[in-house]
């Protein structure tokens, strides 16, 4: 069990994060002024289509982007428990990774090293951050495997990733991430590559572990269904910017931004079988050349004259905002 995380206290504060990529074709402004906060014991979801910058945001937190070509711009701030991470030394970042902040990824098969045993990989962070020896870390790995619901953990701990199913591998990833009792777990599309039934199991597992360990979760996904399952609050991203924030309830009941509405609209509904699926017309623009003014205007059914200038986030309440001039505060 982690030591008492004060629910509600700011754990991760991202402020005006701009992560740009310097490519031969120009500068891609993948994340272009993103701000949000993850508080203790809460689950924050970042939602958006592919290409909106959510994954880059999550990788920026842990500094996992290769510095050329990526560069976190001056003026960006990522504070973890009050400590500034942008510009922190590599040594400090390494001390945090896998320790205070852990991350799990989308493809469990390729995210695990195929030539090392599963137990070895789980125990690695333990040996690194907690100074355990081989035997102790292996024992702990067995315990963690039990915790994430893998049967016969004594056998599994000595197996290789290719011997496990997709769902089990993701459980292993989770075990690996939890091994040092992190304060914050970043989960980048953890269920996207899994079958629907397994998805549900993994989400349940995440939720229960989050509660038992008392940690915060930053969940990246494009799937609103997932958001509905596990998140407390939501940040909607589009074209490198935050376009709406709110609680899950607020977002689902009363979406303010046309993009959020579009996303919700395109969810297939059980109640309406046979109904034609609605999609948002057009595609995400090129980050090297974001459109002028509102970046969503080319796909927005409500586009109008006010969309020509760049939109600011309009505060609608506590932790509630939307980036659209049509929204009334």
């Amino acid at each position, binding site marked *: 069990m982690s030591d008492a995380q004060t629910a509600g206290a700011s754990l991760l504060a991202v402020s005006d994060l701009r992560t740009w990529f310097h490519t031969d074709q120009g500068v891609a402004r993948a994340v272009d002024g993103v701000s949000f906060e993850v508080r203790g014991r809460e689950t924050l979801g970042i939602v958006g289509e592919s290409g909106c910058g959510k994954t880059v945001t999550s990788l920026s937190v842990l500094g996992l982007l290769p510095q050329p070509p990526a560069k976190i711009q001056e003026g960006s701030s990522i504070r973890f428990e009050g400590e500034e991470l942008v510009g922190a030394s590599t040594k400090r970042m390494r001390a945090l990774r896998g320790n205070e902040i852990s991350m799990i990824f989308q493809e469990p098969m390729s995210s695990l090293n195929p*030539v090392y045993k599963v137990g070895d990989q789980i125990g690695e*962070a333990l040996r690194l951050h907690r100074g355990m020896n081989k035997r102790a870390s292996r024992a702990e790995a067995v315990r963690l495997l039990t915790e994430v619901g893998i049967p016969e953990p004594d056998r599994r701990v000595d197996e290789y990733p290719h011997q496990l199913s997709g769902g089990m591998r993701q459980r292993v990833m989770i075990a690996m991430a939890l091994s040092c009792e992190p304060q914050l777990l970043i989960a980048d599309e953890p269920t996207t590559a899994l079958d629907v039934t397994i998805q549900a199991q993994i989400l349940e597992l995440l939720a229960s572990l989050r509660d038992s360990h008392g940690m915060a979760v930053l969940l990246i996904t494009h799937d609103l269904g997932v958001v509905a399952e596990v998140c407390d609050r939501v940040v909607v991203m589009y074209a490198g910017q935050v376009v709406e924030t709110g609680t899950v309830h607020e977002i689902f009941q009363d979406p303010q931004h046309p993009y959020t509405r579009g996303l919700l609209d395109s969810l297939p509904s059980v109640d309406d079988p046979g109904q034609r699926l609605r999609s948002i017309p057009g595609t995400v623009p090129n980050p090297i050349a974001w459109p002028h003014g509102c970046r969503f205007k080319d796909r927005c059914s409500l586009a109008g004259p006010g969309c020509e200038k760049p939109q600011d986030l309009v505060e609608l309440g506590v932790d509630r905002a939307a980036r659209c001039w049509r929204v009334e505060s």
Partner: protein
Amino acid sequence: MTQYVLRRLLGAIPLVLGIATIIFFLVNLAPGDPTLLLLSPGVTDEVIQQMRENFGLDQPVHIRYVKWIGAMLTGDFGYSFTHSRPVADVLMDFLPNTLILSASALLVAFLFGIVLGTIQAVRQYSAMDSSLSVVLLFFYSMPSFWLALMLILTMSLYARNVWGLPIYFPASGMMSTDYEFLSAGGKLVDRVKHLVLPTLSLALVLMAGIARYMRGSMLEVVRQDFVRTAHAKGLPERTVVFKHALRNALLPIITLVGLYIPFLFSGTVFIETIFAWPGMGRLIVEAIFQRDYPVVMAGAFFFATMVVVANLVADLLYAVVDPRIRYE
């Protein structure tokens, strides 16, 4: 796994026999005949005939074939026409010389190739990567015999006569002429000194190829998701590269090792000629020119068998190194 090995070994037998047959007919049907080389004024036809009988060449080809195969299966590789000794003895004399040189060259080439390739991949696009690329391309394009001659000129001749360096290397041979009079330590040093130039001639060219291969492999591996996971766990760069990335990047290199194992036994005739190294390459080539059939056939057969064995070893190595591969 044992079953797999057994099956492979059993399958190798017809393969090797087939190779032996092809070798036999290729060699014996080629124009020219060892007795031709012994022709001199006054050597009569009868004498030539007698010689051909002595060499066993008077019998028809298919009978000779059967006899040869039969002898080989009992380990009798025949008698060398030019060395006046059993072929097996001749091979055993030359083989260790080749092994020493080839093993050194392969060791140096793989060691440095892997290290340099890794450095290049980890420091991609840096000045180190670019300059190494240039240097390695230079060595890769160079014919090994030319490199050998250049090394002799610089590290033997110029080093001693022109630059007056305290250390210079002998231009040829496996050991000095006063080898027997050296102490045990002196003998070792002498052997190593004689190994340096020929090893470098072979290794530098090989190394360049291996480095390129390794660089590519590493670059691919470094992009894999599990490398990112390793970083996300807070592991230092060193561990990520050498524990997580390297082991995966080495897998295709094993193919290379398998390809090069036969080279351990075949030697390289160019390098051996330039450095007066009495190895298998020179032995077999000389035997071909002299039409010393028993040596040529035994040498070719031995070498072909080594290739078959090397392939098996490479495949087995794969299974050892990559847990995903299991043979039934």
